């Protein structure tokens, strides 16, 4: 019995390819995070550089579920490469919201695509969360080894606890700015898709 899927082969191949590009560009931008001073800038840069790719992807979407596939692959790659399981619930929720935003724009509106990407990239700080979680156990270890609480706080001053929310916001800001740049660079493709 033929159990036909909702998606055609063209949709799924497009989903796979654009996911590869988005995740690849995000990962390359994440490489600068190995220099610890630059780590807070990783979500901003990653969202900014992946934005043109995502905008091109939205110009080739015409049915719900494609951002969900992108979200699943994002979750798969980042949880299996040692960034922790925190990305999983965050990406699920944000993908659903992005899908709803794109659906209300009827897949033909640039503004809705930009908003959907900004919401989706609030999860760009997800891979950084384990660093915040493990800071607590490092602090307890330092205190247990008789180094003292104030020394522990001084060592961890590079990335304080309250800096998480601004990093998420920076990710969203980078996403919004990047989509503007992406629309300008890839103007021809959006005209062909009828979105402008």
């Amino acid at each position, binding site marked *: 019995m033929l159990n036909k899927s909702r998606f055609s082969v*063209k949709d799924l191949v497009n989903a796979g390819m654009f996911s*590869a590009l988005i995740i*690849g560009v995000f990962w390359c931008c994440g490489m600068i995070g190995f220099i610890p001073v630059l780590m807070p800038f990783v979500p901003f840069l990653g969202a900014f550089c992946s934005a043109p790719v995502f905008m091109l992807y939205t110009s080739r979407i015409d049915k719900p579920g494609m951002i969900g596939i992108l979200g699943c692959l994002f979750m798969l790659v980042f949880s299996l490469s040692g960034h922790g399981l925190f990305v999983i619930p965050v990406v699920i929720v944000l993908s659903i919201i992005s899908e709803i935003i794109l659906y209300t724009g009827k897949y033909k509106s640039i503004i809705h695509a930009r908003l959907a990407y900004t919401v989706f990239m609030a999860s760009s700080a997800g891979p950084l969360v384990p660093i915040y979680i493990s800071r607590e156990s490092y602090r307890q270890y330092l205190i247990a080894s008789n180094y003292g609480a104030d020394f522990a706080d001084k060592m961890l001053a590079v990335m304080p606890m309250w800096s998480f929310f601004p990093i998420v916001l920076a990710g969203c800001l980078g996403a919004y700015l990047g989509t503007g740049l992406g629309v300008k660079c890839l103007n021809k493709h959006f005209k062909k898709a009828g979105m402008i």
Partner: protein
Amino acid sequence: MSEREFVNKNFKHIINIDFRTKLLMTMFLSLTVLSGKVQYRYPIFLFAISVVPYLLLLDIREYGKCIKGLVLTSAAWAVSEFLPKNTDSFLQGILYMAAAIVIRMLPGIMAGYYTFISTSMSDMTESLRRMHMPDAFIIPVSVMFRFFYSIREDYKNINEAMKMHGLTFIKNITDPARILEYKLVPLLVCSMRTADDVAVCAMTRGMVPGSKRSSISNARLKVLDYIIMFLFAGIFIYFVIFN
């Protein structure tokens, strides 16, 4: 330049485990290594666990990555254990944090790399199908991992072409705005054309998502798979949850 094959089948692998086992192993390994408690209470055990992916890489004859990874891991552990912690220097704090990132993230990345390099495409899709994943997930996953190689080749060619226009490696750092326009956009257009070709090829071969397809692979879960799965699950449960 010789074309590197996805899986080198010219020699026998000693460890033949299923793709599902490798996925579970990667997940439990990366979760155990990421947890801060294990690093500070059982450092020797954590070092032993971090070395496991490199032994597996030895099995598939990836000597270069194995040696580089072992050297980097040992250096990071040496920095984190033997560097004196009671100095004020900023550089030392940065070095310590870089070592912590390497210790936490590199084993997971290497285990994931081993998972996808050592499995052939047919084995991967057959295992995913046996896990009752829908076609809408299996096809993008296999396309994505195949495309990583194709994108890398295309990017290398674009890089070489752009060198003739004056965009060298130094310019990447001094003038980064041009990377986006002169390298990313051609890469996108090139990849779009490849994707359209691949979709047409797949349709010509009669691929309809949702229909039953035969497979050449005989991916089965054997005794070794169950041993490895229970071992890593047990390690995770004991060291992270019960401690």
